[in-house]
């Protein structure tokens, strides 16, 4: 069990479910590097922990801070923000995107910029009804990370362009209609119900393999993709066979003992 006691993150795990709650306010860039390091360490722990199947990420609900632009300018002036910070950020986002666990983003409050970039790479994005979404980076004179690459794949080039170039704030309903998110949960119980449904009904291997094939689908040729699909499908079948054998063995042992 990893011990996380930080101003930026809290981490809990119960059975095969893990949860990262982000306490860091992304509108303050001062400690972003430190946050990245801590977040990376938790991802490494989750990756290496065979017991964990599902990782949920949520953020302490915060409102858009009217000082966020001046905070950004101060961080820029003090050289806290540089290209190395963005490199480190993209590395951690890629680690989350490639994590060998199912990832669920639980979205509430104002989801802007940096956290939205993280949420975007999760397998499932579940929002609370009053959540708002926005990519404000263009208004600051920078780019919203590799969301410029991913967003067009998820919601289409036209919608991605509008969202990123305008920096507009959109509602959860709007985000759902654009397929920026997958579902609006009316309350926490509904969110948990969804999470347990995934846990009970879905195979982790097939989620990871489908995620990878979908992410690669825009740049792979059909000839490459068919080979990748067959390799991935075989891995899914092997995982299913292994699970079936384990269940059978368990049943036999229970029968013998019982």
């Amino acid at each position, binding site marked *: 069990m990893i011990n996380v006691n930080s101003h930026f993150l809290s981490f809990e795990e119960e059975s095969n479910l893990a949860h990262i709650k982000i306490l860091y306010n992304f509108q303050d860039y001062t400690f972003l590097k430190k946050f990245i390091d801590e977040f990376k360490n938790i991802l490494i722990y989750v990756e290496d922990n065979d017991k964990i199947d599902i990782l949920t990420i949520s953020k302490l609900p915060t409102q858009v801070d009217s000082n966020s632009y001046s905070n950004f300018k101060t961080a820029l002036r003090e050289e806290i923000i540089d290209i190395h910070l963005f490199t480190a950020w993209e590395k951690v986002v890629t680690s989350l995107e490639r994590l060998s666990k199912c990832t669920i983003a639980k979205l509430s409050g104002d989801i802007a910029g940096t956290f939205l970039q993280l949420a975007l790479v999760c397998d499932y994005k579940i929002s609370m009804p009053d959540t708002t979404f926005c990519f404000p980076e263009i208004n600051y004179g920078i780019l919203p990370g590799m969301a410029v690459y991913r967003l067009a794949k998820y919601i289409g080039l036209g919608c991605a362009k509008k969202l990123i170039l305008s920096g507009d704030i959109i509602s959860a309903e709007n985000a759902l209609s654009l397929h920026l998110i997958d579902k609006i949960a009316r309350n926490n119980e509904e969110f948990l119900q969804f999470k347990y449904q995934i846990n009970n009904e879905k195979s982790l291997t097939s989620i990871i393999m489908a995620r*990878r094939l979908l992410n690669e689908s825009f740049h792979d040729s059909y000839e490459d993709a068919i080979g990748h699909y067959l*390799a991935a499908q075989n891995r899914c079948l*092997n995982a299913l066979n292994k699970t079936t054998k384990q269940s059978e063995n368990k049943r036999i042992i229970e029968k013998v003992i019982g």
Partner: protein
Amino acid sequence: MILTGIVSIGTSNPTTKYTQDDILQKLSIQNERIKNLYKSSHIRTRHLILPTDTAIEETQSMLLEKHLSGCLEIGGNAINEALNIAELKISDIDFLCVVTSTGFLAPALSAHLISAMNFRNDCQRADIVGMGCNGGLNGLNVLNNWAKANPKKYALLLCTEICSAAYVNDSSMSTSVVNSLFSDGAAALIVRADEHVNQKARPVIHDFKSYMIPNSLNSMFYRWDSEKNKFSFHLSNEIPYVIGENVEKPIMNLLDKFNLKKRDISHWTIHAGGKKVIDAIMYNLGLTSSDLKHTINVLRNYGNMSSGSFLFSFKNLISKHQIQSNEYGVLMAMGPGAQIETALIQW
């Protein structure tokens, strides 16, 4: 601690290079299924020693002669390149290990090379014959042990394969799978062990792990075909899936020993066994096509050169000068058995 370091690498191919279309034309292949097999191989070019007149069938004796002359020619060139890079003379080599599976000879290839290239008469030698595509790593394991037992002496590994001397040219899908994939190539690697490994002998070799996949003896085999009066190689279409299902075992054994994770490996040098095999490894080890770019490049530009293929990928990697000090690498090759061989290296 005495560690073996890699001093230099040289490679060579026959001068004749063909596209897949060239080969289809040269072998007068009209069958559409076989044509598709060649075209979907993800191979652009291959080096092969093909007879001028392909209408005249090469007998087993002619093929064996081609194996010997071809191995001596490209093997010799690869050795010379490795020696030049290391600024060594042939007389500096104390141990020669030759790996091949495309012909059986006695005296073995190492004796022919020692005689033809004027190695010292007291140069020790060993031949690894019949281990197929993974043989290069078995050879490197032998070389590593010899070098550690004989510090400061130079040992040379030569993987030399004339796969065009193991061809059966009929219209069956079984032989077409082989003929559409394999090619001729040689790679020579010089190593030296020392307590204080210097920068010129990098990366160092830490360890090897092997894994023979149970119940898969018949998935790849090279046997006498009495109908054709030739040796014939067979690859089962199950191979990519069998390799994929088992590939994590030796890799985890290797990494666990050094308390490493897959993410700690900066460079993956894997045998270019074929597109489906590469896909199976990628999706079962969680690697990307960027991780395997050198392997994919070798397959695209050279085809499968059996035991030396992974060394072509290794040469490709080190030529890019994108390696940082202390970074780890994994070498991996798969072949008949079915066998998976792995090694951990560090710069």
